[in-house]
């Protein structure tokens, strides 16, 4: 994602708008990941550190198709489908066994999954990154009333809005969505009422995979790179976003993602040159400091706990 604006001079309105859109574009990606993380946390109380593997596996799928000269029209659905299948597969292979375990065991299970997937790519593909061509239109910009927008930013924003709308529709209006919400409220009771835990969890993982797949699509369009640890940093940002918004609160996850994206874009443009490369480092520090003051995230209300 390029930054056409300059750092000197007074802040023009156009610049603010450009940065805002830029931030929304970046934040939309994080929001999609965070939404998936929050969804799974809601159903299982699991913070899925293996959520980044959906991006990693999709990246290799895209790489495999790209080297056989497939166009992005093939790659795009393949990436999303891979993410969904991977998500459900990881649940089936690993998380299913620790459903009723402690938070500790679940966290480390997802951590272990991350390493197994990463090491598998190191063993059977390569430890070094593989590159494939990005779509041609990725750097094009459009001009709307004198303000230049990157097409990719606008499409991410559009995709985020559509996916959010779809998620809300699924959760509020479909039977699956209602069972997911019920299970998120009280898993055991939902089960006793005859809601199949298998199906609910699988649906949640599939939905989370879909959202991660859309995020992966844009991430890969921008980077065109497949590496064993490709998903690590996006995953971490997504988890942080979910946490900033208050874990398990889906609106919070979206807001957290957008906020993180905005912060990142602002840091990219206003950090002094000497520590220009440290955007991620500064973000992680800021988030850690944020939690000193708001231990349960920004948007979470005072918890009402039954005792």
């Amino acid at each position: 994602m390029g930054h056409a604006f300059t750092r000197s001079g007074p802040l023009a309105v156009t610049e603010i708008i450009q940065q805002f859109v830029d931030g929304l574009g970046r934040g939309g990606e994080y929001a999609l990941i965070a939404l998936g993380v929050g969804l799974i946390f809601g159903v299982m109380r699991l913070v899925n550190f293996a959520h980044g593997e959906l991006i990693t596996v999709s990246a290799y799928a895209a790489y495999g198709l790209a080297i056989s000269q497939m166009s992005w029209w093939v790659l795009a659905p393949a990436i999303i489908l891979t993410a969904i299948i991977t998500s459900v597969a990881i649940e089936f292979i690993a998380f299913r066994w620790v459903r009723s375990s402690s938070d500790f065991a679940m966290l480390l299970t997802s951590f272990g999954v991350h390493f197994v997937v990463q090491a598998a790519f190191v063993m059977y593909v390569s430890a070094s990154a593989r590159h494939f061509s990005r779509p041609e239109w990725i750097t094009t910009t459009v001009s709307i009333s004198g303000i230049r927008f990157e097409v990719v930013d606008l499409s991410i924003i559009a995709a985020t809005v559509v996916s959010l709308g779809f998620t809300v529709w699924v959760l509020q209006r479909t039977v699956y969505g209602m069972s997911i919400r019920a299970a998120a409220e009280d898993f055991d009771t939902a089960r006793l009422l005859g809601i199949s835990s298998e199906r609910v969890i699988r649906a949640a993982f599939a939905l989370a995979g879909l959202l991660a797949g859309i995020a992966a699509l844009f991430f890969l369009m921008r980077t065109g790179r497949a590496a064993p640890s490709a998903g690590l940093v996006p995953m971490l940002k997504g988890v942080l976003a979910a946490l900033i918004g208050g874990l398990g609160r889906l609106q919070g996850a979206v807001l957290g993602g957008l906020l993180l994206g905005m912060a990142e874009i602002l840091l990219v443009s206003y950090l002094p040159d000497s520590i220009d490369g440290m955007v991620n480092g500064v973000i992680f520090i800021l988030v850690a400091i944020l939690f000193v003051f708001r231990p349960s995230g920004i948007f979470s209300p005072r918890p009402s706990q039954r005792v």
Partner: protein
Amino acid sequence: MNTATTGDRRESDELRRQPSQSANLNKARLNVERLGSDLLGAALLFGIVSLGGLIYVSGGGAARETLFTTLLINAIVVVGMQVFIGNTGILSFGHVGFGAVAGYAFAVLAVDVEWKSRLIGDAPFGAANASIPAFGAMAAAIALTLVVAVIVGLGITRSGVAGGDIAATVITLAVLFAAYEIAVNWTEITGGNRGGISFRPGTAMQGRSYAYIGFGLALLIAATYRSSRSGRLARAVREDELAARSSGVYPVPHRMSALMLSVGLVALGACLRVWLVGTVSPERFFIDYTLLTLTMLVVGGRSSVTGAVVGTVTVTALTEITRVASGPDFNAGPFDAVLRPGLTDICLGLAMLGFMVLRPNGFLDDYEIMDMPILRRFAHRPDCRPRASSSSSLSIAGVSSSSSLSIAGASSSSSLPIAGSGSETSNALPRDAPEVETVWPTGPGVVGSQRSGAVENRLEAHDVNVEFEGLIVLSDARISVSMGSICGLIGPNGAGKTTLLNVLTGVVPVQSGCTRLCGRPIDALAMHLRARTGIARTFQNLRLFTNLTVQENVAIAAVASGVSTQMARSRADEMIELIELGELASRRAGQLDYGASKRLELARAAASYPKFLLLDEPTSGFSETESQSIVQQIRAIAARIGCGVLVVDHDLAFIAAICDEVYCLDQGSVIAHGSVEQVHSHPAVISAFIGE
């Protein structure tokens, strides 16, 4: 807090210790003995590992020696992580990040100036021209890391009930990534991604004694912390934070002290690691090392120091085998598809998955070599069980006789309180005889508390209002309980009974109105401070420290109220006798049946000798016989410590059997107050329970 009463209480505690004249001596001996057992255990562990290492190394080769030294250093790091993760139960990914801070600081300070000028010639803060001996550099690096840890620790330790431990975990992950990003990008001082900082050839660690010393130190610190007061309280918070807080434990200092010791050890290990290898780069202290050390910790068992060491040895052996097998010199033959680079990581990942699925508490769970009976006997350490030491068996004898006495008293006259509780106490203190109904036998510290007593002896809520998102839960609720009396709180479901208890204990803040203890407002006091001023409670749904023993559950509440460890132990024994769980004192609380668990919660609340004991549905789920026996136990306990009791329950027969007066709550307001008969026949109460 009423200082006079507290003073009396302390005094009475002193007095109660008088029977055994050598109490202080005993206490000192006890501490030395406990320390002795920890020291012996640590020494034994150190001896086993060192001996094994020496035998392995004597097999020949510098490679073996380096491997074993690496093992020792990894063990320092893993034992360091165990101090925090094991005692607080918070999973941390950030310890390796703290290690990175220490490793870099050590390298920057210890590498000689001339050599450094080639690597990081323009390092800021005068670091380019500073070079101090390795030990000084190590100390400075550890100090710097601790400063960073304090700042991060504020976030980690404060994210409590609200955020859950998961928030803390994610913060630690952010620390790890932040450390990595800084190491990669702040090239002026870190040398960046590729080169990093290395020692001039020949100036890296010579000799291996440092690793041995560090390992011994780590074992010593971890073993001592484990049985320290702070360690115990940290584990209570790990088990149930809300219950710990309401027993008077404030989690932050204990989590913080665990973090500091832990980070200190990890920093030490990191410095040694850098010194041994002779170089530091970002990848060395990033996610791969995190995976390695965490796998070591969970394979052995995160709750145990011994487990940390066992895990380190096991995983080192595993990685060494996979390293050789996947290396270029090994002819893999038909297994080439498996035996190739990346094998070590996949094995670590699978080991972690396997253990999380099949044995999440590791090989050893919370078994410690320090607890081996032979070591205890060797150090003459008294067993956890009550009867092992002469001093505590003495107090037990006194208590059991007093409890049988008081129960007999209670059952003979159900409405009247117990005649004279506790033979030793009555020897020690002049006490009022229970001559009229309004005067209760008093506990050790409370001289002549009267039922109709002044505000000094009351726990009060005045016109309390509480609203949850528009729903009015309490509206102008008023209640007043006096020390020495047992007061009931009844009302239909949703009337606000538990909320009133939560208001009094500080779980829920008041929106208007006020709460007072002995005439002083307590609204501003946090949960743990209220517990320390003398308000203890039980919970509607069980909140025990399930992985601690029955004895520890009770003793921790006493420790949190500020008494000495020995005193706490004898109080625990006393309470456990009163609730008739003496046989099960060394069982884990999680293994108890429901009825015993409820009784244990009662004993835990009483162990701090509170002024007021608030019981939330003590008979829920009980049969009639069980309810009857708990009536006697509550009476015995109340009489023993002379507290006031506020009991919420639905079982009106139970309320009638135990209470002197009753409040009835409906829709957040008190609709009736008086004797049991008065409240039962009150028209408002009848209509609230039965409907119009």
